Each structure stands twice: as structure tokens, then as C-alpha cells.
């Protein structure tokens, strides 16, 4: 019994610095959270209410799935990427920017500090995603009278995995970049332009190759999971004269989730290695 108590006490003292860092990060970033929450609400409000309710000729999508699909595309394309970049860009690089990363005998273990900060930011960004989903779900209920179903929750779960993958990717950049601004600019450029250009090149030169390397492509799963039956085939072919362009719609659930988990694990491992080396 005493041993169990000792183990619990040990775990408590191990976790305590992480919770302190977590709470500190929540207090530190709450303004960003409020800004992104308001932005999420306003975007859904504009897309779902102003666009349809105020303009009679702007037709509602035929079904609730189409309605949710159109709303979630914007989430995965813009909100999540921007939120991840703004929340996670400073997670490691600020420690070196403000010289706190070079302290030789810190009061708090630096890895625990980063873990606490990471979880804190992740919770805030999940909160933003939840607000987006709740607002969209309410508008869906308003227009279609249908409560959220399991697929909507599955989509939310995939969005969270996607957020973790993107935030890990941004954390990796934060581990070797010098400033927050540089991290934000470079990750936004890579996530928006880099992956899109790579996808275009693959589409043109290797149309049969599915772009499973792309985190952007994996994000299509967030909206396509709602489509029943699941898209099959998962691509569309457009033939112009003798030239066929193949556009991939979505990865399978298994492949999509695997890609996101690989991004997540690889990025976090690399970020921790770089962070450790950077301190020396």
C-alpha cells in the first residue's frame, strides 16, 4: 500500500510541472483563443447564415451532408492551419529567442515545460475546432432539423488528429527556426503553397500516384467521412483530347489516419532531438 502511495506521489511530482506549464500557457494564450473562437463563429455565421438567410436566391445545399461538407472544407483548408501556425510557432523558438532555453540548471525540466505548453496550446486549438463544429452543427440543425450523427463526431475526431499532426509539424519548424514570425511564414508557405504545388506536379506528371505524402490531402478526410457511401472511386478523371487529369478526392480512412499519425510522431521525435541538440 505504501509502495502504491509512493508511486502515485512520484507520478504527481513528475506531472506537476507539466500542469503548471499547461495552466500558464492557457493564461498566456487566452487572447489568441478568444480571437480564433470569434473568427470561427463569424466565418460559420457568414457562410451559413448571412449567405443563405439573407439572400433567397442563394440556395441551401440539398442535404445536410453537403451543407456540412462545404463548411468543413473551409475549416481544414484555412482555420486549422492558421490556428496551428499561430498557436505553435513560438512553442520552442521563443525559449531561445528570450534566452530561457540556454539556462543550464532550470527550475523546471525543459521537456516538461514544452510538453505542458504543447498540451495547453493543443487544448485551446481543440476548443476553437469544437466551437466551429458546434456552430456549424447548430446551423445544420436549424436548416435541416437533423441532430448531429456519429459521422459528424467521427469528422470531429479526425479534425483533432489532423490538428495534432499539423501542430507537430509546426512544432518541428519552431525547434530550429530563430523567430516566431519566420516560423509562421515558413509553415504557412509550406502548408499552403508547398503541398499544393507538389500535388499539382504529381497530378500532371504522375496522375496514377495518390498524394498520400500530403498532409493537406489527408485533411480531405475531415469532410469526406460524412459522405455516405464513402467516395468510390476516390478520384475523378477529366479527359481533354488525349490528356487525362486525375484529381484525388480523399484517402481511405486507414491511409489518411496513418499518414497523420506518421506526421505527428516523426515531427515530434525530430523536434525533441533538435531541441535537445540546440540546448548544448
Amino acid at each position, binding site marked *: 500500500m505504501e509502495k502504491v502511495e509512493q508511486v502515485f506521489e512520484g507520478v504527481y511530482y513528475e506531472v506537476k510541472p507539466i500542469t503548471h506549464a499547461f495552466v500558464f500557457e492557457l493564461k498566456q494564450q487566452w487572447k489568441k483563443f478568444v480571437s480564433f473562437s470569434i473568427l470561427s463563429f463569424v466565418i460559420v455565421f457568414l457562410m451559413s447564415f448571412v449567405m*443563405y*438567410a439573407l439572400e*433567397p*436566391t*442563394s*440556395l*441551401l*445545399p*440539398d*442535404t445536410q*451532408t453537403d451543407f456540412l461538407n462545404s463548411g468543413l472544407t473551409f475549416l481544414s483548408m484555412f482555420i486549422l492551419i492558421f490556428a496551428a501556425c499561430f498557436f505553435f510557432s513560438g512553442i520552442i523558438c521563443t525559449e531561445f529567442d528570450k534566452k530561457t532555453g540556454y539556462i543550464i540548471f532550470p527550475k523546471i525540466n525543459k521537456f516538461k515545460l514544452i510538453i505542458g505548453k504543447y498540451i495547453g496550446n493543443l487544448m485551446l486549438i481543440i476548443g476553437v475546432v469544437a466551437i466551429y463544429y458546434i456552430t456549424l452543427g*447548430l*446551423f445544420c*440543425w*436549424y*436548416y*435541416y*432539423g*437533423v441532430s448531429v450523427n456519429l459521422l459528424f463526431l467521427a469528422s470531429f475526431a479526425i479534425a483533432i488528429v489532423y490538428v495534432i499532426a499539423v501542430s507537430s509539424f509546426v512544432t518541428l519548424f519552431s525547434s530550429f527556426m530563430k523567430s516566431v514570425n519566420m516560423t509562421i511564414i515558413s509553415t504557412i508557405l509550406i502548408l499552403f503553397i508547398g503541398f499544393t504545388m507538389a500535388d499539382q506536379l504529381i497530378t500532371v506528371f504522375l496522375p496514377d500516384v495518390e498524394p498520400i505524402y500530403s498532409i493537406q490531402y489527408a485533411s480531405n478526410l475531415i469532410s469526406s467521412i460524412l459522405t*455516405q457511401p464513402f467516395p468510390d472511386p476516390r478520384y475523378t478523371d477529366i479527359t481533354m483530347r488525349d490528356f487525362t487529369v486525375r484529381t484525388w478526392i480523399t484517402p481511405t480512412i486507414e491511409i489518411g489516419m496513418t499518414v497523420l499519425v506518421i506526421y505527428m510522431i516523426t515531427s515530434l521525435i525530430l523536434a525533441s532531438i533538435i531541441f535537445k541538440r540546440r540546448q548544448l
Partner: protein
Amino acid sequence: MLKNNKSVRIRIISILTLSIILIGTFSTVATATTYYSTLAKGTEFFQVSTFNETAWQTTVSTNSNPSDWFEGDANITGAQSKFTTMGWTSVTWEMYDVLTLIILTDIDALNVLMTIGQFGYNETEINDNYTNTYSLISGIRSEWYFISGAFNESYNSATDMSIILSNPIDYKKILDDYNDLVSVIQADFLGPADATVKAVFQNMTADDFLWQIALNNLAMGSPISMYIEELVDSLGCENASYSGNKLIIERIGEANYTVELTYGVQGTLTSFVVKDATGTIIYQFISMGNTNWIVYIIVGVIVGCLSVVVVYIAYKKRKFNKLIR
């Protein structure tokens, strides 16, 4: 002194301007003679609450059931249907549009119209001969037919319409033009081979016409009771009456029966009741409304919670500031 005079003048001008705007607004409402649409985007659910099959067969028809009037499992008590109003547009129809979209709704009848098009009854000819135009609001809806189980994800019909003619008197013009066209066609297609054409194009009484549009896509402009009144009176129906937002049509099947159609605030059908001569309900489906109120409550709760949080933070901050002082 000068300043005081100026502010008094500004106040008087402001009050006058406001009064003019208010008087203008209210007088416009009071003297409104045209009808307007109150359609709203959203989904409305219906449920069959009563179906007495035996009474139906002895009163309405021995060899039909409600699913001949409404698609799907309309003859099963508890079956539900729904439609989503996706939007609406203001359009102007000519006679050919009216023919194809209101009168000849049956696909076989439309095929006959296409066939006689080559004999001078095409769109151009018909519209040239019947020059009335009809301005209307066309509501675009996706419809799920009555089903006794859960709704499918995809709709049964994406092209369903609810039609609100800007002026209910236009229904009379439509009927007159149609009956005139029928008489011309009947006179033109005299041979025995033209029996199909004659069968499709037959004179329609005001009561039959009202029954047909009521079963299909009739919706009312607002004020609804006035619209129904004007519609029934202008058509000159012998077996139709009205009571508030209710349109009552008397019909004869195996015996006399009455159909009561109630129109809700949006001008669309919210209740359909078939009664026998004694007033006993044989068949009924009613609107279960929409779930907008749930959303309003949730939004209200969220806004309330946020307000409490804001007030609490402000209170704490004030208390903190007082302590510092």
C-alpha cells in the same frame, strides 16, 4: 441662447423626420394590396396521424389509398415525410410554363404536349396566342416522401416547388386560358387516332383545378386568409370554402367527404385532413413543425452563459481595482 435655439430646432427636425418615416411605414402596411411571400429556408416534418382504411374505402375510394395522392408510405399511420426549402426566386411565367409546371404535371400528359408541338402547339405558338404573364415566387424544395422508417440521407425529389402567384386572381386567368386552349385542341384533333390527345386535354372546372393545385404545389401569399379568400372567390369554386388559414374542399367519392388544408405562417401546407360527411376524420397528416426553436434555446443558453462570464470577469476586475486603490 443661440445654442439652445439650435438644439431645439435639431430636436424638432429629428422628431419630424422620424414621424414621417414611421407614418410612411405604417401607412404602407395598412394600404398594402399585394401579397408577399413568407417562405423561410429550413426543413419541415410531417407525420401521418390518422388513417382509417375501412372508412377510406367506403367514403373516398375502394381502389385507391392516400399514397395515390402523396408519394411514399402515405397510407401508413406514423409514416413521416419532410421537405427542405432551399430558396426561392421571383419569376414570370408564360402560358407554356404554366402548362408544363402546374397543369400537365403527369409525364404522359407532358409527352402528349411534346407530340402535338409539331402541329403548331409548341411553346412559341402557345405563348403567342395566350399573352397573359404571371409573376410568382417559386420556392425550391428537396423532398423526402413519406417513409415508415428512418429517412434516407438523399432526398426523393430535388425539383419540388412551392408556387405563390403574386396575385391569386391569376389562377382564374390560367384556368380560362387553359380551357380556351383545350377547346381549340379538341376542335383540331377530331380523328379517332387523336383519342389520347383528347383524353389529356379536357375542360377543367374551377373545383377540379383547385383540387389539382392544392394536391401539388400550391402555397399561399401573406396575408394568408385574404389570399385563400381571393383565390376561392376569383375561381368561382362551387364546392370550396375557406375559414381563416383553412381551405375546405368538398368532394365526392364513394360518398361525400371533405378535405381541409391548413396553411401555416410560411404559406405552405401544415395540415391535411379528410373527413366524412359526419365530420369523422378518415385521414390526417400534420406538420410536426421544425426544430428551429431548439436552436434558439441553445443559442440563448450560450449567450446567457457568456454574459454571466463577462459580468463575472468585470465584477472581479472592479473588485481588484478597488483593492488596489
